[in-house]
């Protein structure tokens, strides 16, 4: 305990210094309140110079163009098959009924009736609602991008596994890549490739690779040593070992990687509407901007259904355990699922041939629930408007504006000292230096005020999310059934692309800061609730029994046993929560905030790579700093608890 006490001493000293700076703000020189001129480095210019070099002198442009041509060709093929764009092979479109039947059979084969109905039903809904073309535009990108990412991730993962040195280089890159907001990826791609579907596909590929690398590496490391030794004793060569023993044994992890790739693809492809990617995302963006609530809800439901379907199908595939088939001599019986699928497809093609309705649902035949939804929402909004108006007024005047002003009022030196104090309290000198370095770089980027607005939005949202989420989780963790239900909701909600969360908040609050905060709160509350429940449920029952036997009341057990034991897991949730809020704040920028996100959108529309990446890194550094602090803290807690 000696060490942490010493940490606390230094931390208090630093804290006192920070408070001192705040108290004497009026007499501080300007250079200590805002980063002085000489400290702000022209990172953006440097990055632009590097990119110009890559683009013009290294001829990287030619390479990327060649690659994007391949991607475009593939996109055309899938576009032809899925929605009949007139390109080679000119076979499409495949009737929607056939695709729906295929989705049903995939779900049925992987898990059973329910999954079959969910996945088949999703496609029926899409077709009947007349959204087939948009959904297929979105899906065609995923169909092209996911295999690229999976292959790339698998290869890089294997390389990282083979060479620890490569792993050491790759790890920090992956950490940064996973903390960069979506938009930061888009700007360079726009520079190299332009806007449109192929840019959307390529940004999707790049964005979704990191989790695949991580999962491949994890899976390969987890293969039991004896399996490898058995392979070696069977006389397997290295290549045979890799392809027939290691990779198949790491199947589950690798397929979870595939699942994550596909979910990341979906999230990105929806957002890629900002760089001219047609499809569901673009429709949603247009509808939201023109405040057509009913229609955007329809699109939102489609995106949610697609997310659930893709997630459930790939998870079922990943978690499927091999089961032997009862030996049967008949080919027909052994391959009955294949036969049924073929028969259903033939039926679909036949129907489509005679009734065009089953080939394509025309706009005028499409159903729509937009009218009733609009009507209903009008009612609801009329009802709750007083509440939302009041809430909006209250939050803006009494919470958001004062908080924002306070964050902006702080001298930047005081913020750095404050962070150093927190860092020191948690992890000593090293952590303090890491915190100061990350925020020092943000100060040096010249975007201090914007960054502070982002920080304030994230802080407010995470705090509100915790205030709402943790009690909910404590209540939910009381009984296993309730916990299971809430976890299911959280798991499902986590698969939704972040964009979706904007629909209800815009519906309720309109386009302003409150809407942004509300969206971020909901998005951030999900991991908080989820991990709190998991943490609470996983407290060893003997401990609770021991506390019960000591005569503790329920509140005492909660406060002295369950919460402290659950804290490390809850911290993981808090960490994700911060990450999610950062991403969401940036995405929500198009509703109108004055933070880094808004500048990033400007950089995107003026294709200013340097500025875009500097802003992206600023966001990433906030994420990485929080990640460092929370991980350190949770490790210390775990060690203290002996977990």
């Amino acid at each position, binding site marked *: 305990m000696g060490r942490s006490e010493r940490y606390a001493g230094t931390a208090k000293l630093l804290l006192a210094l920070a408070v001192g700076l705040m108290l004497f703000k009026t007499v501080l020189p300007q250079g200590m309140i805002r980063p002085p001129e000489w400290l702000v480095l022209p990172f953006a210019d440097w990055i632009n110079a590097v990119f110009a070099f890559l683009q013009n002198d290294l001829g990287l442009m030619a390479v990327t163009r060649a690659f994007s041509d391949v991607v475009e060709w593939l996109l055309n093929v899938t576009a032809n098959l899925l929605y009949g764009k007139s390109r080679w092979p000119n076979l499409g479109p495949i009737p929607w009924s056939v695709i729906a039947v295929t989705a049903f059979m995939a779900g049925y084969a992987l898990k059973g009736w329910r999954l079959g109905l969910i996945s088949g039903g999703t496609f029926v809904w899409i077709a009947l609602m007349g959204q087939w073309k948009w959904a297929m535009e979105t899906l065609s990108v995923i169909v092209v991008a996911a295999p690229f990412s999976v292959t790339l991730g698998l290869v890089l993962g294997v390389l990282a596994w083979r060479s620890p040195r490569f792993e050491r280089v790759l790890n920090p890159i992956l950490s940064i890549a996973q903390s960069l907001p979506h938009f930061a990826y888009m700007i360079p791609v726009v520079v190299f490739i332009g806007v449109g579907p192929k840019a959307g596909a390529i940004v999707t590929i790049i964005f979704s690779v990191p989790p695949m690398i991580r999962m491949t590496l994890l899976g390969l490391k987890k293969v*039991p040593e*004896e*399996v490898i*030794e*058995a*392979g*070696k*004793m*069977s*006389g*397997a*060569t*290295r290549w*045979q070992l890799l392809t*027939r*023993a290691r990779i*198949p*044994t790491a*199947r589950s992890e690798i397929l979870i990687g595939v699942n994550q790739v596909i979910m990341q693809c979906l999230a990105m492809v929806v957002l890629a509407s900002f760089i001219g990617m047609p499809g569901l995302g673009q429709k949603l963006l247009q509808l939201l901007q023109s405040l057509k609530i009913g229609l955007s809800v329809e699109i939102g439901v489609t995106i949610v259904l697609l997310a659930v379907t893709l997630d459930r199908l790939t998870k079922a595939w990943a978690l499927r*355990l*091999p*089961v*032997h*088939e009862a*030996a049967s001599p008949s080919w027909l019986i052994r391959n009955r699922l294949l036969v049924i699928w073929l028969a259903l497809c033939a039926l679909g093609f036949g129907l489509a041939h005679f009734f065009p309705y089953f080939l394509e649902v025309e706009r005028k035949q499409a159903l729509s629930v937009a009218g009733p939804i609009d009507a209903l929402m009008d009612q609801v909004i009329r009802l709750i408007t007083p509440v939302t108006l009041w809430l909006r007024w209250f939050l803006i005047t009494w919470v958001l504006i004062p908080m924002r002003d306070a964050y902006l009022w702080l001298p930047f030196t005081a913020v750095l000292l404050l962070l150093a104090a927190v860092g020191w309290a948690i992890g000593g000198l090293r952590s303090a230096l890491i915190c100061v370095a990350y925020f020092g770089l943000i100060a040096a980027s010249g975007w201090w005020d914007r960054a502070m607005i982002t920080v304030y939005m994230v802080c407010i949202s995470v705090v509100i999310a915790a205030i709402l989420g943790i009690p909910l989780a404590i209540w939910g963790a009381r009984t296993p059934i309730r916990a299971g239900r809430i976890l299911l909701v959280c798991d499902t909600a986590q698969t939704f692309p972040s964009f979706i969360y904007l629909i209800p908040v815009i519906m309720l609050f309109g386009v302003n800061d409150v809407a942004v905060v509300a969206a971020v709160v909901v998005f951030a509350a999900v991991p908080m609730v989820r991990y709190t429940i998991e943490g609470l449920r996983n407290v060893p029952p003997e401990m609770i029994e021991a506390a019960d036997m000591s005569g503790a009341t329920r509140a005492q057990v909660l406060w002295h046993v369950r919460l402290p034991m659950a804290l490390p897991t809850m911290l993981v949730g808090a960490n994700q929560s911060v990450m999610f809020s950062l991403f969401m704040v940036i995405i929500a920028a198009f509703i109108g905030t004055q933070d880094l996100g808004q500048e990033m959108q400007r950089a995107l529309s003026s294709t200013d790579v340097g500025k875009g990446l500097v802003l992206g890194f600023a966001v990433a550094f906030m994420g990485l700093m929080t990640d460092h602090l929370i991980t350190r803290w949770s490790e210390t807690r775990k060690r203290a608890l002996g977990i």
Partner: protein
Amino acid sequence: MTESVITCRNVSKIFGPNPAQHLVQLKADPGLSQAGYVHAVRDVNLDVRRGEMLVVMGLSGSGKSTLVRCLSRLIEITGGSVTVEGRDIATLSESELIDLRRSKMGMVFQSFGLLPHRSVLENVAFPLEMRGQDRSTRYARAREMLELVGLKGREDYFPRELSGGQQQRVGIARSLAVEPDIWFLDEPFSALDPLIRREMQDEFLRLKGMMNKTIIFITHDFDEALRLADRIAIMKDGRVEQCDTPDQIVLHPATEYVAKFTSEIDRARVVHIGSLVAPLTAPATGEPVAAYRTIRDLARQLISDPRVEIPVINDKGAVIGSVLRQTALDVLLGDAH
């Protein structure tokens, strides 16, 4: 006697960041112990003869698994040499080593090491697949092996659908598929519960009787060792304390440790009358006994036999010497002191 198939000379294995350097330092200062280094195998000299069954015994962590993995070069040794069929395996290239394993060696693992995504049949056929045999031949052979270990009808099951004993049978079938000359078994039965274990030992003895292989078998169960072994090597802290026949180990323990290790054993059940034989002092009188019988087998006769000296015959019926009744009774009843 017969030639040796595997020869170990001064084999050492050190785990740690820089094992070679640590070994050199150890040469200078044998008492050295440094954090981060584990000396798992120390200066082992061993000859395994063709067709014999050598059981390696010792407490947990005594280096048994490590030693056997050195013999198959699953891990690289730090010092000394291992020779298999006359070739120093450290000098083999990767492809020669693969060849050696494909043609000569089989291994059964403590926790089975089955490939979870392959059916039982595909698991057993795996070594044949590695050799590039075509599908139908290797499946035919795998079926044969599965029948041999009593798993006919389970070909299409997956490892997770089988019990521990059944999984270990799959491991055994797989290791036998290539007809290895040298068979390594690393605690093959210790993950099984006692009943199944007994059954598997019987099964193993049956298999062993059906073929002529050089077998290296690890266990830390003395009874198991006694049931199976031609010779036993007892390990402690990486050293082989003694390597001899079970009779010699219980009759003449080489070190304190071996003596303590074997003190709980009922010696009469281990010692064969043949190992107590001394040259005849006088012409043999009366009914002789067969050398392969244990003292326990002969207990009744020994107690009631009036002779001082009992003649012993070998399995061809020739008299090889005699045993003093008193010596045999000492083994049966414990020494007088």
